[in-house]
């Protein structure tokens, strides 16, 4: 009888407020996830263009100078960790070229890879 007639105690209200705060925090974190997902896309698109850039450079150079190379930074694109071109000879007139652009995001390393053959014609 006594319990049924009393309202909320201060403690109960405080607990309710803490719970509400916890809920709000989760919502706010979700907003953050949505915003980061957006910049994910921006980085991977730019990284793709930069990988393409390296491929085009290699296609434009003399066949003999198509060789592996590592760039540890790309001026103007500070988010990029490195750009690695790996070249291996398939036969005397054909090279297998792989370009990888890597960047760090959300604590993990992301990368994009392009691969092609360059022939000595």
């Amino acid at each position, binding site marked *: 009888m006594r319990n049924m007639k009393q309202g909320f105690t*201060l403690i109960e209200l405080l607990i309710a407020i803490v719970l509400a705060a916890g809920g709000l925090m989760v919502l*706010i974190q979700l*907003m953050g996830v949505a*915003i980061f997902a957006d910049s994910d896309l921006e980085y991977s698109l730019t990284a793709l263009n930069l990988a393409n*850039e390296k491929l085009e450079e290699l*296609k*434009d150079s003399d066949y003999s100078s198509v060789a592996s190379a590592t760039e540890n930074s790309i001026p103007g*694109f500070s988010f990029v960790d490195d750009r690695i071109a790996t070249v291996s000879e398939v036969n005397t007139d054909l090279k297998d070229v792989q370009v990888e652009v890597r960047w760090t995001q959300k604590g993990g390393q992301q990368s994009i890879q392009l691969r092609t053959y360059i022939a000595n014609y």
Partner: protein
Amino acid sequence: MQARDKTRFTNRGFTLIETIIVLLLLAMLLRVAGFVFVVSLRAWDAGRTRGGIREDASYAMEKAVRDLTEMANGSLAQYDPGGGGIGHTIQFNDLDGNTYVLYLYNPDDSSFDSAYSESVYDLWKANTSGGDDPASGDGVLILRDLVSPDATAPATALTISGSQVTLDFVVQRSDEIVRTRTKVRPRNL
């Protein structure tokens, strides 16, 4: 007497002090939540602006790369109608013999030199063999709001080096800057 007091005690609601404390706590909580909400909204807005730039830059990049890749053999040049500055342009023919010019345009800058005398330019594609005149901003708009790739040493968005074209798009809208760059080697060399 004691029994009556006890009854009164258990039936009571909040005291004024308790209510005030709860209200104060709620107010603080709401204030923090409101602040975070405003910050998130700003971040969201920035994200939307960047997303818009990204979409537009992707489209422009795709279009320019395709055109340049498929250009006619030996037609790569800079557009130079009257001599003088030609930095902000790339001229090429398609396989049907039409001549096109990709150029940076700002109505206040009459020359096509590579300096960014105005802060913002738009990228246009003109069909000069079809009568388009880049000097008056004819053609198709490809990308808006291009700024200089490097504020200290203006390099231009369109550079020809040998048989290779560098496309360096730096787009600024409100406070957001998005940069993307690639190179193209025409395939019909």
